């Protein structure tokens, strides 16, 4: 029997290079002889092309010309498809699923509801881990306003469908006269009125239909999210937080580290991407430059370093027990897969 699949979750604020780092991690483990799957949300066009997953459905083997001891696979998460296939499986009867698929609210919800991407990423991760096909799965989490949305959102979707609320909407979808007889709470009547005033009766009807359809498998939904959360807290799962030296992003990351600790997730390391070198200006050897060039170089470095100072000060507040790895943006190769490989080697050096 195979070992249990190791799971690595890559989190962090938007625009810090999460996807690139995830791919580099993939290279790292594949070079170490593992069978690795990188699951990504929306890679840049260039990265998707480099990995060979642009416009592809499902898992693709990365065609790397150099040598890798193991194997590297990648996939782009298609949220609509994952959501639909989940509904189909959970609904058991095709007709029930079909009814839901036709609901306008469902169509909008499965892609636009805050956290629906986190939800689909989580169920797909669970599915792939369950299959035990890979030694390691690396998940690049969806971009979000708050990095920890990934951990909260699926659970929030479940509470959304909690019985009390769903029941109320279902009543509304049924016989309207019976609502008033069934709902003892006078307040509910008022709430309903405001809702209609705000959105119109057509909209309220759509919502009621939606809840009626989704009610049939809310148990499975809850069950699935519960199991996935157990997976996230298991010892096979580790988290990496990725950030850049930008002051705002570090501030956000600090809050995030706190949040993860409180919630009991295993934060293994923090990666500071595109880090600015700490080398001293006084150590620079600039003999070969003309004097105006020399002056200009010093001016630019001073400007860029000053920009980093406040964030470096912030970094001092970082918890001691979380290891920080710096990834410098000093790669030379222009070929994308080669760059990733180089980056993974840089990271490997930092690991050891």
């Amino acid at each position, binding site marked *: 029997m195979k070992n249990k699949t190791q799971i690595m979750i890559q989190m962090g604020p938007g625009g810090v290079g999460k996807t690139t780092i995830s791919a580099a991690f993939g290279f790292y483990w594949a070079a170490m002889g593992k069978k690795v799957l990188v699951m990504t949300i929306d890679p840049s066009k260039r990265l998707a092309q480099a990995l060979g997953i642009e416009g592809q459905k499902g898992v693709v083997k990365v065609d790397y010309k150099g040598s890798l001891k193991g194997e590297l696979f990648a996939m782009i998460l298609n949220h609509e498809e994952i959501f639909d296939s989940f509904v189909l499986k959970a609904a058991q009867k095709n007709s029930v699923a079909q009814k839901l698929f036709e609901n306008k609210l469902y169509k909008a919800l499965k892609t636009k509801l805050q956290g629906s991407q986190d939800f689909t990423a989580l169920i797909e991760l669970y599915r792939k881990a369950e299959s035990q096909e890979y030694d390691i799965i690396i998940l690049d989490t969806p971009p979000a306003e708050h990095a920890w949305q990934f951990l909260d959102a699926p659970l929030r979707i479940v509470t*959304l469908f909690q019985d009390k609320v769903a029941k109320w909407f279902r009543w509304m979808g049924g016989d309207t006269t019976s609502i008033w007889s069934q709902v003892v709470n006078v307040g509910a009547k008022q709430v309903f009125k405001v809702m209609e005033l705000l959105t*119109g009766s057509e909209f309220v009807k*759509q919502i009621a239909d939606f809840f009626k359809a989704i009610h049939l498998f809310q148990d499975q939904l809850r069950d699935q999210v519960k199991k996935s959360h157990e997976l996230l807290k298991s010892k096979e799962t580790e988290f990496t937080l990725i950030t850049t030296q930008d002051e*705002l992003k570090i501030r956000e990351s600090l809050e995030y580290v706190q949040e993860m600790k409180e919630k009991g997730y295993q934060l293994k390391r923090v990666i500071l991407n595109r880090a600015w070198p700490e080398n001293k200006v006084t150590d620079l050897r600039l003999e070969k430059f003309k004097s105006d*060039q020399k002056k200009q*170089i010093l001016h*630019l470095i001073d400007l860029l370093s000053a920009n980093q100072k406040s964030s470096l000060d912030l970094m001092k507040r970082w918890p001691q027990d979380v290891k920080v790895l710096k990834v410098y943006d000093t790669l030379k190769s222009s070929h994308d897969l080669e760059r990733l490989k180089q980056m993974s080697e840089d990271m490997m050096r930092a690991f050891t």
Partner: protein
Amino acid sequence: MTRQIKGPLKEIHFVTGKGGVGKSTYAVLLAARFAKQNRQTLLVEIGDRSFYSSLFEKPIKYKPTSIVDNLEVAHWSAHECLKSYVMSLVKVQAVYKLFFENPISQSLIQVAPALSELAVIGQITSSPRQHGPHGNHEVLVVDAYATGHFLNLVRSPSAMAETIPIGPMHDQSAQMDEVLRNSEMCHCHIVTAAEELVLTESLELLQTLEKELSWRPDFILNRYLETFLNSQDLNHQDQFLLQALHNKLLQQELAVKILSENQKQLIKVPLIKKLQTFQDMYELI
């Protein structure tokens, strides 16, 4: 056919860009410029958390706070926008409280696609639509969401109008969309950085906005390094700092090249040392 715009509001400026490129700072610069032209300006941030509270060193809330002559700042979270809109509709405090403290409404707000986005756009466009609570400003500068979320924001009225074919929600959404499409009223500024990923994403956003809303956004390259050096001068260095500087310049050159290939007009905002406080920003303009 464009409806006549009513109310005092003449211009809405949306500032967007990928997270961390400095869009909030650019929004401040923009708002400060309008204020100095003696136009009643409101600078608005719309995320869940307030960045301007720390910049202006005072709590920035839903109700505008005065900063300098002609400049006020407000923080319009989706929740606050929805609250004030519902309040303006029902007018009875008790009913409105009942609505918001009810788990059913809480679910409705979460489940209804784009309802929070719609509430924000509704608030932003309330003056020209003469519907819902609005102030007396001439210019609104909105420090808006980052790229992807921003698209959801400006798409929300047309999406809602399509989803719901009739009723008050449909009508209001259609009117919001009309305001957004008014090119005299709405202006967009995409702040970007000299990094390939950020730049490509910004260009995609630009093209989408041109296509879907017929907008002609400004393109701003922030933290631009003004120098006569080019990356080649610093290439093949065994020194870490020089290599890092080389990479910065290389990225910047690449960015300028990509932009000129796409024939995009570019506003360059130079990187300067002292741009930390509001006073620095106000004096710069």
